[in-house]
């Protein structure tokens, strides 16, 4: 083979190798280990994961009562993700619910629970047999991989739910004191009258995150971590 032919073939080979890499899920270590660690989380939560038949969403519940829900099929009509939490600490800190966006936030006056709903897409997930919570999560990783990330500072995996709100879990539950963390974007809440200093049970803290260009930046978040093990 002449050197010219070799030179011509080199970019073709490089492009083929690149294509292979992109398509090769074996190289997606973050996605792969996100699933395995999520399994560990599901196994560790006291009130194990379950499917809410009325909503079609799986859920895990924290020892404090916050719930993270993910839909078994994003093609359905309900929210794809949902965080449900006790609204009392925010109401007592000055929250005026009517000032929150109705598309994202919903306060149930009876139960005084605040629900944050998120739409990620409308892809339908197909299962072999009855879907399990972990299978549901696997479908999200496969179909909505960019939502799954690794948070280096806390050694966490997380799901970017939208608008700066996240659900995170520890990579290694045995080594982390924040095994499950609910992360809320404080801005809408602050705009709706919440005084962050008065919110009980939630930490108002600066968190290091990457912006869209990959630059590290400090942002305010409401955090509620739980140690499960």
């Amino acid at each position, binding site marked *: 083979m002449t*050197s010219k032919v070799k*030179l011509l073939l*080199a970019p073709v080979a*490089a492009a083929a*190798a*690149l294509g292979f*890499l*992109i398509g090769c899920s074996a*190289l*997606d*270590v*973050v996605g792969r*280990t996100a699933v395995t660690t999520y399994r560990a989380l599901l196994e560790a939560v006291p009130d194990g994961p379950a499917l809410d038949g009325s909503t079609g969403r799986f859920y895990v519940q924290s020892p404090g009562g916050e719930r993270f829900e993910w839909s078994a099929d994003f093609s359905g009509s309900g929210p794809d993700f949902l965080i449900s939490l006790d609204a009392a600490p925010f109401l007592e800190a000055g929250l005026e619910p009517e000032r929150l966006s109705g598309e994202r936030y919903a306060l149930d006056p009876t139960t005084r629970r605040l629900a944050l709903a998120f739409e990620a897409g409308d892809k339908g997930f197909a299962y072999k047999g009855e879907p399990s919570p972990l299978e549901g999560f696997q479908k999200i990783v496969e179909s909505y*991989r*960019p939502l*799954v*990330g*690794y948070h*280096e500072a806390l050694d966490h995996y997380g799901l970017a739910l939208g608008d700066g709100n996240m659900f995170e879990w520890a*990579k290694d539950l045995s080594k982390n004191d924040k095994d499950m963390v609910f992360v809320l974007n404080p801005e809408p809440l602050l705009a709706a009258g919440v005084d962050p200093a008065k919110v009980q049970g939630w930490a108002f803290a600066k968190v290091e995150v*990457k912006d869209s*260009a*990959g*630059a590290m930046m400090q942002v305010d978040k409401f955090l509620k971590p739980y140690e499960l093990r």
Partner: protein
Amino acid sequence: MKVEELTVTGMTCASCSSRVERVVGKLAGVKSASVNLATEKLSLEYDEAVLSEEQVAQAVQKAGYGIAPKEDAKRVTIPIEGMTCASCVARIEKVVGRLEGVRSVAVNLATERADVLYVPQTVRLSAIKQAISGAGYTPREVDAGQSVDLDAERKRKAIRNLRIRFIVAAAAALPLLYLAMGHMLPQVRLPLPAFLDPMQYPLVFAVVQLLLVIPAIGAGSRFYSVGLKALWHRAPNMDSLIAIGTAAAVLYSLASTVRIAMGQFMAAEELYFETAAVIIALILLGKSLEAASKGKTSQAIKKLMGLAPKTAVILVDGKDTEVPIAEVEVGDLVRVKPGEKIPVDGEVVEGYTAVDESMLTGESIPVEKKAGDPVTGASLNKNGSIVFRATRVGADTALAQIVKLVEQAQGSKAPIAQLADVVSGYFVPIVMGIALLAGLAWLATGESVVFGLTIFTAVLVIACPCALGLATPTAIMVGTGRGAEKGILFKGGAALEQTHRVQTVVLDKTGTLTEGRPVVTDVVPLDGLAPAELLRLAAAAERGSEHPLGEAIVRGAAEQGLAATVADRFQAIPGKGIVASIEGREVLLGNESLFAERGVAAGPLAARWAELASAGKTPMFIAVGGKAAGIVAVADLPKPSSARAVKTMREMGLEVVMLTGDNRRTAQAVAALVGVDRVLAEVLPKDKAEAVKAIQAEGRRVAMVGDGINDAAALAQADIGIAIGSGTDVAIESADLVLMRDDLEDVPAAIALSRATIRNIKQNLFWAFGYNVLGIPIAAGLLHAFGGPLLNPIFAAAAMSMSSVSVVSNALRLRRFRFRKKGEK
């Protein structure tokens, strides 16, 4: 003992040349071995009975380098008619291949051409063609332009290869640099595709970098093959440093990739593939620039070699026949028309012309040539058609000798180069030690492994000694080449270096300071005799004389167009003069003794005689019919440029001494005309060397300038012997420096060139050492220890590459060296 010059391939730095020198020097039968890194030549003196060239080549190959095919081999493509099938191809290959001197032959039936590699000194092209004809085929004329100089081709290939390697490495390094550093740039934040986000897809991020670094490593594969081999032989060189430095970065990055695969995603920030790729790309860039620049350093020799025409017209059975220059034989009659170049050396047998020899001597005024005059190959026939008989062809021509002289000078090593050789011999192992110690020291202070690795790699990469190895030979190549362009031929690097140390220049008077041919300067007639008549009588008396003074008078008369009268009778009286009978009158021509012996009174001429003698001239009394008739004075006048040259030398701080066998009065008169500092008169030829020795005993470094056989001993005695003009072969043989032109102003020009070259070498050594002296502590983290910046290995590689490029570029400045002379702009 056999003296051989071989071309070594694969050397990159002074360590390589030292290694080859050591390996070859150790071989049984080798008397001396010297390697010039810039010319890539191994100069070897060895016992043929003990050692063969193949064994030398094997030893060099074992050390990790190669021996290029001999430069004297030429490749030629001969068009052939009459081939019809593969059998024809085999037949031609067979008949040509078995000729002695043919190294290889490949016949292509489709193109109807034979590609032949042959040694012109062993086999003539005509013999190859004859063999083809003998086999029943018709060789057509070879286009002279198809002859390829193998050495030039090899160098072109090497440069092209380096460029391709650089392009491959750069094509890998740039995306790697973008991937690794682009998103870290604080202001720009170059975007990355989502699948390469190091936080989302760290393993893809790492593996893509790994894939990209592979072509870069492939492009720099010789650093590993040669460098590791050198390391194995415990003679590490520049390649070893690059190999270890980049391998450390790659291996660490591979370990990080494995860590990522095992779930330690933060290791994505500890990938250094781009460091290795960028280092390789930068070193290859430096090497390709260096190779291109090195090619320019030998341009002077290429120019010289290109002076010879490719073909000659010889007379065969009275007919003009054009043949390749290699086929001209001694004794051939060669015709050269106006505007054509003279192909070989010879002697004019027919015709009259003026020949421009400036390309060989630097002399711009064309020289007239008539039957019997010598002509030199490569000079330009200006205005007349001549036929000359070839006397020297091929390697024997003056041009070939000059080329050989310059090649030898360029290939030789100057004493100043020994310093660089000694240093570079120890340099690489010491640098490796410093790199290791510095890396470990930082680890001991609590810094991370990554930090220690950065220090280790930076020290290794910045300390490559290639600039050190190039500092001296490149300057010598350019300096000697520039000199050769102007007809100033240094016979070696040592001569070039010694010349700048000269404090005293001793000039031989006759032929060096003066024209070397006496001329009539004064004609003083008495008693109403016309000057022309006096000169005519003197010339008639001297016509049969072979004495230089007599010849000068005859020539003087002829130049004035005086009738060439022949004496009836002529008698030479040794030590006094001559007596002749002209037109029935007795004519005496000689000194005071002759007049006294013949009882002729000088009368009023005596005072004029003394006056002329005190002016350094040689006056001769003339008496006609027993009565004083006048004086004819003859003198060897200084050349027009002598006084200017002496003045320039004195302005350069040189002491100028004139050495002559003449009497003190004559010598003082010439000395006053040209302005020398000191005169050594009445020195017999055999005592000239002693006179030089006496000046040396005063602690002066002496250059002796001469042109005759009688100067040979003095030229050899002097620290620098300078043979001037068309000097004798003996003088040229004894000299260290040959001036092609018969112009004394080339002496200060040569000294100035030597001074400029040595200054250039010192600058080069300063830069080469400076890079390392400054670079190593910075790379080792000295500035960082005091709160300053840390040198990234990438910048270390850039600095290292630039050191070689700057050294070669600085040497190339010598190509613009101007030989300033008074009156020249």
